[in-house]
């Protein structure tokens, strides 16, 4: 068991290094570099000045040396310096990670909760209105792009019926403090979290319904009924724990999607998280920031996979044995 964990962890580290190198190479391949943008904002420069700047940032050296230098710094916890924001990237990310985690966490948890409930109920009455509603909603959720859903929700709940704020994370006057501030943030959280949750719901509700349907037909559920267990125990003890497995696995493996969804939703709602930061840094050709965010995201995805692995082991004893 301990041995297995060590292997998993070292695999994860290797994976992260590979992701880093790949990210670096991909960004290098894309046209344009930070110096061009910088020069553009300075209002032009002579070719000598540009070459100087390139040399200053180490951009004139061969790619593999740049990568090695970057890797060396990352190992020491240094993700570089953002030219545009004039701040170390680690500081920049640290300042933005809170809002993103709040948004993604809220959306993910509520989506999993709601979809489990939907799955349980719709699977028991598979010809009911609720059951068909799950299918339709999930189809719609799959097909509708996140930003569009976000904009429609804004039009509905902020413009037509103005009960929720359009964007941002807190009211601009900044007067609120303490409990009022928390409530203010929560008020702003509703719309983006709802939008993001709808995307996940589309993924998970179908899955949890299908999985529940399958489990309800299984021999061990029949055994549970034949033993004379009350319905509550049959459903929530015997069926649900087995049915939830694929949902947990899927949610863990799809965590990358979760982050990319967050980028779109944060942008639409001007939510001051990593997503907006990523979006801005792409526009500004702010390579260090972008690389930093990509690296940080991959760390989160890998961590999430490890966590999923752990959870699945807790739920299903069969996996421990293998």
């Amino acid at each position, binding site marked *: 068991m301990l041995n297995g964990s060590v292997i998993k962890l070292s695999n994860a580290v290797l994976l992260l290094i590979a992701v880093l190198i790949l990210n670096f190479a991909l960004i290098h391949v894309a046209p344009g570099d930070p110096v061009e943008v910088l020069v553009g904002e300075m209002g032009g420069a002579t070719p000598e000045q540009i070459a100087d700047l390139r040399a200053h940032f180490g951009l004139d050296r061969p790619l593999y040396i740049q990568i090695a230098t970057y890797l060396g710094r990352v190992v020491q916890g240094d993700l570089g310096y953002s030219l545009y924001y004039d701040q170390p990237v680690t500081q920049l990310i640290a300042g933005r990670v809170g809002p993103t985690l709040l948004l993604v966490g809220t959306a993910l948890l509520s989506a999993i909760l709601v979809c489990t409930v939907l799955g349980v109920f719709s699977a028991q009455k598979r010809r009911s209105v609720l059951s068909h509603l799950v299918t339709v909603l999930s189809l719609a959720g799959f097909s509708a792009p996140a930003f569009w859903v976000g904009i429609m929700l804004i039009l509905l709940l902020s413009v037509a019926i103005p009960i929720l704020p359009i964007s941002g994370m807190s009211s601009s006057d900044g007067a609120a403090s303490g409990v009022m501030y928390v409530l203010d943030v929560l008020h702003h959280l509703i719309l983006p979290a709802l939008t993001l949750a709808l995307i996940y719901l589309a993924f998970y509700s179908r899955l949890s319904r299908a999985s529940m349907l399958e489990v309800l037909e299984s021999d*061990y559920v*029949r055994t549970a009924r*034949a033993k004379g267990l009350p319905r509550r125990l049959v459903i929530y003890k*015997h069926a649900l724990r*087995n049915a939830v497995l694929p949902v947990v696995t899927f949610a863990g493996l799809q965590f990358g999607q979760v982050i990319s969804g967050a980028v779109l939703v944060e942008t639409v709602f001007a939510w001051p998280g990593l997503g907006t930061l990523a979006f801005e840094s792409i526009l500004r050709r702010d390579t260090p920031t972008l690389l930093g965010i990509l690296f940080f995201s991959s760390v989160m995805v890998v961590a999430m996979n490890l966590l999923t692995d752990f959870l699945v082991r807790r739920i299903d*004893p069969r996996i421990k*044995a293998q």
Partner: protein
Amino acid sequence: MSGKLLSVRNLEIAFRSGGEEIPVVRDLSFDLDHGETLGIVGESGCGKSVTALSLIGLVPNPPGRISKGEILFEGEELVKAGERRLTQVRGNDISMVFQEPMTSLNPVYTIGEQIAETARAHFGLSQSKAWARAVEMLSLVGIPSPDKRAHDYPHQLSGGMRQRVMIAIALVCEPKILIADEPTTALDVTVQAQIFDLFRDLQKKIGAAIILITHDIGVVAQMTDRVLVMYAGRKIEEGPVADFVRDPRHPYTRGLVSCIPRLAMPPDDEPAPLFEIPGVVPAPRELNRPGCAFAPRCASAFGKCRSQDPALHAAGDGRAVACWLETEGNAA
């Protein structure tokens, strides 16, 4: 009320398929006495398993339902009983062991817990008392070091061991009736013998009546007191097991009994070819036509067999046969 433990009267079970209801079990009546072992035999698809499920109200619904008849358990009607009452009966008064030990236990709970929860549900035992009872049951069904094994998960046990656990679950509340639906089909022959020994032992200890569903005539001969033969959803013969083996009356039963391979070698050292009944059990949908359901496969069928369905006919000492040969048996 008669003193019968279980009395099934004119049971019909129908499944909805393509807009119409098709009966898969028709006009089935039988009784079960205290402590008796009744064998229900027949080929796959003749309605044995669904009959068993109907006794504890577990016919998959939809699409199936009990469309006619009654099931009297100690005089109490179970067909119209509510789910709440059935929950009390299941596992406590009537319990069931299934055909598939590999998939019938929940993979995510320990076997101890799966036995203990049954005791908790019916007897309201505390966690620790129910666990102690589970360990006791495991030792009763012959699982070595039961106090350790109780913490195992199903995947850590072999098929035979899992079936023992299923039996422990079925017997933990000392039911009055144990239904065993082909309990050894999925197991090795040597393990089969062990499981049947176990059934016999436990029946003595607990005094439960057993309904043993099987298509293995050898098992029926060894295990049961009385046999009920089903064909295409109907009872076609019933009687004491000795008569059933020695003197089968219905051509189908005769066929079944002849299907037992004989180990004795004839002098010419050439084993006799295995007997088989030609054809297959008709699908329930095909049974709308008149006549005996077995007629198309029956070597002794004559004119009347194809036009009229024979009713069950008493044939002395608790025997009954549904065959025209019994009443007008001259054409054979």
